[in-house]
């Protein structure tokens, strides 16, 4: 078991990463909080030592993606509707790049992780294939299609904007 200091260091260091992945998959704050608790509880109880900080980061990303998937496919979630989705909420604070963010979020789920890992975390296709436990060629394919989809979305937005 890891010490409290290690846990808070990990939360400070990887909190943003976890939050971004949560944002890709989830839509409300309480679910994000759940994922944070799950991920860092696992981190604290995870016994093996990581080879490097890169290894640790990859482990966190992997665990977060899995936790999100688990949450999304849970029985309770598939049969109920969160209150948030009924009540109209003001969206995220508008920013210069909200259109890009929206475009990524509107991608089909299977492309989101790949696009995020490739463009933001700047992992190579081989690394992504290890993190997601997928074939390298599959990753390339997902990446290409994701990129295409993203491009069309952004062009649409641009046209609308104009």
């Amino acid at each position, binding site marked *: 078991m890891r010490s*409290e200091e290690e846990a808070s260091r990990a939360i400070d260091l990887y909190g*943003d990463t976890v939050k971004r992945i949560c944002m890709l998959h989830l839509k409300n704050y309480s679910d994000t*909080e759940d994922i944070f608790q799950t991920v860092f509880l696992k981190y604290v109880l995870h016994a093996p030592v990581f080879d490097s900080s890169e290894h640790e980061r990859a482990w966190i990303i992997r665990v977060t993606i899995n936790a999100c998937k688990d949450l999304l496919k849970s029985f309770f979630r598939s049969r109920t509707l969160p209150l948030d989705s009924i009540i109209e909420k003001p969206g995220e604070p508008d920013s210069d790049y909200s259109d890009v963010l929206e475009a990524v979020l509107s991608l089909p789920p299977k492309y989101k992780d790949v696009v995020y890992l490739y*463009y933001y975390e700047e992992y190579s296709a081989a690394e992504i294939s290890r993190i997601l436990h997928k074939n390298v060629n599959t990753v390339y394919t997902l990446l290409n299609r994701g990129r295409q989809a993203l491009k069309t979305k952004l062009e649409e937005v641009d046209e609308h904007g104009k």
Partner: protein
Amino acid sequence: MENKEKLKAAFDQVHAGDALKSNTKNYLFEHVYKKGHVPRTFLRRFAVSAACSLLVFLAGGSYLFFTPTAFISVDVNPSLELGINRFDRVVSVTGYNEDGQNLADNLSLKYLNYAEALKNLLADEEMEVYLADNADVVLTVAGDNESQSSEILQNVESSMSEHENVYCHSSNTEELHHAHDAGLSFGKYQSWEILQDLDAGISLEEIQDMTMTEIRDLIWKYSQEKFQENPMSGDSENMEDSQECPLDGSQDSSDEENSLKHLHGHHGQSEDE
């Protein structure tokens, strides 16, 4: 690619809020560090199971230890009964009349080996008062487990051989229960049954406070009468049921005893002839 820069910038804007971070830290603190619940659940489970098995073990052990499986009834005038458990220890001392009750209260015979307990009992100062004048002592052994009671009987006989006027019997537990229902010790109850057969018309209450010597005299007297009335009838079944074993060659009372035996034992034989 321009879009790539935009995308990076967009994601860079996303941060985990301080509230989210501190909530997660609190959660970990509450659920992991404060309780340390992972090792404790294991420890607690172990402790619970250990406590349960200890309880069962103790209950079983104390049942085995505190349940008498055989009884030794000691009758002089005070009537005492010693409950013997399967480990040959005295686990209960019950007095069946006033003198016996006093003795039971004053003597500490519990948890001694029965042979030791009997020795202590007969060597006791208070007991000496009753044992004066060569009073008869009747020891009756009864138990469900035949091998145990016969072993006890043998041991008692051999350890009592130095004492005068000690008579040993053995019997079964059924009669023992009858005796307890009647509120008598077992030795006296047996004597009372014999007296009943001899039509002595003596009540249980009267028997309770008589000394064994007196009772023996009575038996002797009534059987003598009966013998005179009806010399050919066998009135001795009861006496034969309980195997008597005079242990010593002491004079008066054992003469009586011997003659009783002759009376009963040989009488039957002569009948056969």
